[in-house]
């Protein structure tokens, strides 16, 4: 198979998913508002002490990003599963893992990228400033694609299973832990003045590893679900 036809398949899937998301823009808007509301709840719960807020900021922002990604996972495959598009995707000559990569990329643009873009604003709410804000954005930019990649495995595994909403959280959240640790760790160490480079490198490593393994595992899970 020629490379151009594979490339076309991926870009076609991305374009289609983005187009669908634009037509149903309220879905993406819900993710964004969810993120903002969750993050805003913490100062109300913990108290407005600036020093405390600055300390918890990396963890809160990262956990909120995790949950936002988690809640939007049902949208990755379920609509296509219900209307039969997914079965067609399995049948096309292009490798399924490549098509999965396209779907995950689209999911990241819809639910991950808004988090990255909003994060400086949310960081300001918590009193982060200067270089730390930059590290926060960078950590989310490196980390949220990994969240989408790992999440797609879970979403494919629970496709059409009863109670799939809670089950996918149980499956995926433990796998998110390293990303959370490195992501929040990067911001924390930047605040402490030792720079976030080590943690950012580890986040990059997680991204590369998940790019390499996750589409393959997701494709296997999809094939099992569609048998």
């Amino acid at each position: 198979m020629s490379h151009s036809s594979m490339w076309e398949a991926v870009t076609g899937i991305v374009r289609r998913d983005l187009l669908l998301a634009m037509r149903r823009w309220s879905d993406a808007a819900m993710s964004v508002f969810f993120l903002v509301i969750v993050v805003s709840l913490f100062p109300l719960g913990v108290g407005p002490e600036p020093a405390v807020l600055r300390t918890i900021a990396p963890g809160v922002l990262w956990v909120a990003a995790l949950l936002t990604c988690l809640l939007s996972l049902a949208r990755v495959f379920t609509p296509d599963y219900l209307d039969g598009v997914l079965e067609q995707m399995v049948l096309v000559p292009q490798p399924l893992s490549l098509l999965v990569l396209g779907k995950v990329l689209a999911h990241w643009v819809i639910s991950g990228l808004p988090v990255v873009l909003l994060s400086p604003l949310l960081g300001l709410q918590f009193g982060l400033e200067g270089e730390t804000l930059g590290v926060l954005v960078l950590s989310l930019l490196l980390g949220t694609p990994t969240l989408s990649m790992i999440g797609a495995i879970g979403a494919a595994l629970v496709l059409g299973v009863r109670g799939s909403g809670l089950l996918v959280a149980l499956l995926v959240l433990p796998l998110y832990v390293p990303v959370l640790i490195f992501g929040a760790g990067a911001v924390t160490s930047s605040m402490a003045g030792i720079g976030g480079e080590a943690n950012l490198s580890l986040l990059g490593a997680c991204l590369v590893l998940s790019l390499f393994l996750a589409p393959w595992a997701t494709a296997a899970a999809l094939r099992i679900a569609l048998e």
Partner: protein
Amino acid sequence: MIWSKYSVPQAFYPLAGRLIPWFAAVAVILMVVGLYMGFFVAPTDFQQGESYRIIFVHVPAAWMSMFLYVVMAVWAGVGMGLNARLSFMMAQAIAPTGAMFTFLALLTGAMWGKPTWGAWWVWDARLTSELILLFQYAGVMLLRTSIDDVRRADRSSAVFALVGVVNVPIIYYSVQWWNTLHQGASVSMATGSKMAATMLMAMLIMTIAFWMYSIAVILARVRCVMLERESLPTWDEKPAAMPEAVEAR
């Protein structure tokens, strides 16, 4: 002797039945010996006093919890690769025992932590990763029970177990990765042991005892899994009398 014939559940069922008493007996004997050595023979630790003795349960349990996860993932992988029913059944049978050891490691760790660190629970890397391992065992088991179709349940939980195996090295290296409270490993292949010989001996005996226990329990559970799955008259005319009928073969 051709071992591959035992990859068929019908043939493995009686073999497992014959092996269980042996493994169980060895497990009981070694556990008695190991606990006696650990509690009465091994010297008192000069820093931690008597409370350190929980490691004779804690460390082997923690080892088993990780080791069993890898074994479960290997069976899951073999099942995916060879499409063998027995492999999936083994993976299914291993999960509860692995989860039990994970819980035991966490429990004994908390019991050791209270007198030594002054806290039942600290957010230390190894404790946390062990907790995550418990979540992963829960995920494997819950995914399996949520799917009604046995074939899909087998294969889906196999994929999840294989994905989760990435986490096991993170658990192991977490001590080096994060700067934590937990003491570094006292037993290592590279530098040899820093412990007294009797302590090490007792711990190794307990480890082997836990292995034997795991094998016995897993074999017993895989027999139950077989009966559950094959209770429809697919390989025997009289499903009600199956255990005897199979064993007679």
